[in-house]
């Protein structure tokens, strides 16, 4: 380390912790540490942060992950030409993405099935009482003139148009 880096700055403290300084700079940092409570405090801070990250456990991927990866990587090797070459567009992991696709397909299928059921299936009236029977029995009597054409007129009194 030469030049401006010999001008001691606190940012050297992490490099000091990591053994990344040359002997001369290391000695200069140690001299400053012995003289400066602020430097010692900052060293303690970055040491604690470093130790916290280094204490993090290594992690196991979820069950089944490696089997899926082996399958996907074996089948996806031709898209990328070289390390660091093409921009990375991560190949989606099949099972996780498939969950989303299955959900979309299920929703679409449910909608289509509903439409088909409404449009194509034979209609059976579930209305009680049966409308046709009521009209046959009471329509003529309820109409103003009592003929078959106006049988379809409202049975009850019209509230809005007649006064």
């Amino acid at each position: 380390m030469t030049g401006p880096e010999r001008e001691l700055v606190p940012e050297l403290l992490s490099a000091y912790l990591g053994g990344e300084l040359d002997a001369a700079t290391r000695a200069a940092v140690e001299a400053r540490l012995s003289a400066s409570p602020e430097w010692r405090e900052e060293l303690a801070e970055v040491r604690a942060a470093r130790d916290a990250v280094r204490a993090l456990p290594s992690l196991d991927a979820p069950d089944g992950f490696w089997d899926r990866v082996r399958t996907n990587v074996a089948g996806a090797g031709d898209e990328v030409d070289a390390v660091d070459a093409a921009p990375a567009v991560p190949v989606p992991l099949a099972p996780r993405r498939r969950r989303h696709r299955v959900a979309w397909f299920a929703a679409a299928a449910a909608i289509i099935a509903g439409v088909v059921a409404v449009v194509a299936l034979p209609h059976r009236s579930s209305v009680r009482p049966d409308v046709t029977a009521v009209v046959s029995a009471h329509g003529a009597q309820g109409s103003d003139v009592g003929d078959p054409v106006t049988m379809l007129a409202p049975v009850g009194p019209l509230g809005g148009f007649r006064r």
Partner: protein
Amino acid sequence: MADPVPTWEAVARDHGRFLYSVAYRLAGNDDDAQDLVQEALIRVRKGLERYEPGSLEGWLARIVTNVFLDEVRRRKRRPTDALPDDPGRVLPPTPAADEVPTGFSDEVQRALVELPEDFRVPVVLCDVSDLSYEQIATATGVPIGTVRSRIHRGRRMLRASLLAGGVSGP
């Protein structure tokens, strides 16, 4: 005689936990970590013929970091996608079965993910991947002086975040 170049299947088998751990520490959640590992292994598969036996885990860390940074850039171009540093996406890690996690793992991971990528990446490469400053400079394409500065400032930010969250020690 130099060690033979491993197959990508052997890399996945022997270094998978390392790859996944680095990916998780960078991304902060399991979904993104899985994508990063898979994409990294695709690049490993295509790049193994050019791999020169040496620090395999350093090489792997570089690849997964590049995949992560590519993904960060891609998502920044498409801001509707949640970014990997979105703290809301942090999931509790799954410690390896043979390791005993510290009591503060979740808090440390959260503080790590809150760091901007420029600081998080060198901190992870240094303290999770155990790369030298020179290796980190090569992996990230920034001068070694910048690496030194970012690691130091990243650790200070991380420490401040932990203290703000009531965590005084690992």
